[in-house]
Structure formats: C-alpha cells, structure tokens
C-alpha cells in the first residue's frame, strides 16, 4: 500500500494503483487518474463511473454484462470510453477495488 498525491489530495492506493478507500474518491481525482491513462473524462464517463460506484458500494459484483444493460452505455460505447480493459480501467477511475468477476 502506498500514498499518492493527486488533484491536491492524498489518497491510499495499492501497488496496482487502485484506490483502497472508496470514500476518498472525488470527480477531480478521477479526472487526474484518467489523464494519466490518456483519457479526458466526459459526462458520459462520469455517468458510468457513478453507476459503477453505486453498484460496487452496494456490494454487487460488477460484470461487463451488467454495465451493458445499465441503460447508460451499451457495451460498444463502454469499450470505446475506456479502451483496453474497460471494466478494470473504469473500476480504477471509479475508486473501487479491481473487479474479480470472470464475465
């Protein structure tokens, strides 16, 4: 575990860069972390991040299928918004732990 100063705040992250305390998350932190990944966050990104946070903090296991049927984005858009590994990347930017689901 390490500390990281980002967007003027000190946050706790693990060695893969995932935040370990979801309550430290702010929109500004997400924007800064996204910049490090080469992404500029739009309202659509934030809508997804907030959906992910809400589900994860309610204790639900997130799957890519659930996000596709969330009504916020379809899967194609989700892959475009968060290129590469979308579920992992979006979880990282949403300040929640690395996803553990296989689907």
């Amino acid at each position, binding site marked *: 575990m390490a500390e990281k100063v980002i967007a003027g705040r000190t946050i706790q992250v693990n060695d893969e860069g995932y935040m370990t305390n979801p309550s430290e998350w702010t929109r500004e932190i997400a924007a800064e972390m996204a910049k490090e990944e080469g992404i500029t966050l739009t309202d659509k990104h934030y809508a997804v991040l907030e959906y992910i946070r809400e589900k994860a903090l309610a204790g639900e*296991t997130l799957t*890519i*299928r659930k996000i596709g049927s969330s009504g916020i984005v379809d*899967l*194609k858009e989700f*892959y475009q918004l968060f290129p590469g590994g*979308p579920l*992992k990347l979006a979880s990282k930017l949403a300040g929640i732990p690395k996803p553990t689901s296989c*689907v």
Partner: protein
Amino acid sequence: MATKEEYPLKKVLIICAKGNLEDVYAALVMANGAVMEGIETKLFFTFFGLDAITKKRMNCLHTATVGNPALRMPGGLPFPTLLGILPGVEAGVSAMMRKEMDKLDIPPVKEFLEMITAGGGEIYACKLAADMFKLKKEDFTEEVLDIITVGQFYEMAGGIGTQIIFV
C-alpha cells in the same frame, strides 16, 4: 546470467470444436475474458462447435447426461446413467444448468457472442466443417464475420505474444 524476458499476451485464437454446453461456454468465457483484458481475440468454431453459432441450435445446447461421470444430482449424488437415457432428461438437466449460469450473470450464447464482438472480438466458422454439415453463411448468427479455411486461420496467428487455445 540470462535475463528472463516476459512477453505480455497480445492476441489469442480460440478454437471450439465441441457442441456441448460446457465446452462452448469454456470457449466463450475465455474469449470474452480476453476481450475484457484488451487482448485481440479471434474465436473459431469447427465441427460440432458450429452448433454454437448456428441460429437454430445456439440457444438450446445440451450437456451430456450419458457418459458424463462428473454429472451430479442436486445434492451431490452421482447422476445415474440409466436415468440420463430417458427422453427429456438431458433437455431438463441442460435447461437447469443454463438457469444456474444465468444467476451468475453468464449470458445465453447469442448474447455472449454479441458481447465479444462489441468489444472488438471476431467470430469465424470453419469452412471444411460448414461444407460437411451443409451450412451456409445465412445459417449462422450475424456475429460470424466469415467462413474461413485452416490456412486463413493460421495467417491470423502471427506475431509475438500470440497463443492458440483448443477447446
């Protein structure tokens, strides 16, 4: 001392040659998992695996209730082979398995293929097997990009960090 270099996985080609529920899902889960990790993914169906992309058959795949020693009754007792031969038993067991998978958010075959292609994965059918089973492009679900030969398949398999997985 020699240094050990690690090459991250860049591309996977997954071959599914079987048409039973568990083998098709093994291929689908691995393919979708690769797409989710940002790995270039190509999924190739051949022989009885073609059932998984044939419109008429893809959403009613079965698991074998005869000759399947790992099959158990709910509760864990071995599933008697003689019970498995009765009409309707295999369909019932298969429907139950699909229901259990749905609870874990594992989608039906058609939706799984849509998820894989939405993330940029590609689905192919084997030409030789399609010819043998007399199947045409229009018999396959629209996620199937093309019907290709084994030569074309290997042409796609080049590059450092490529793996081929056979199910």
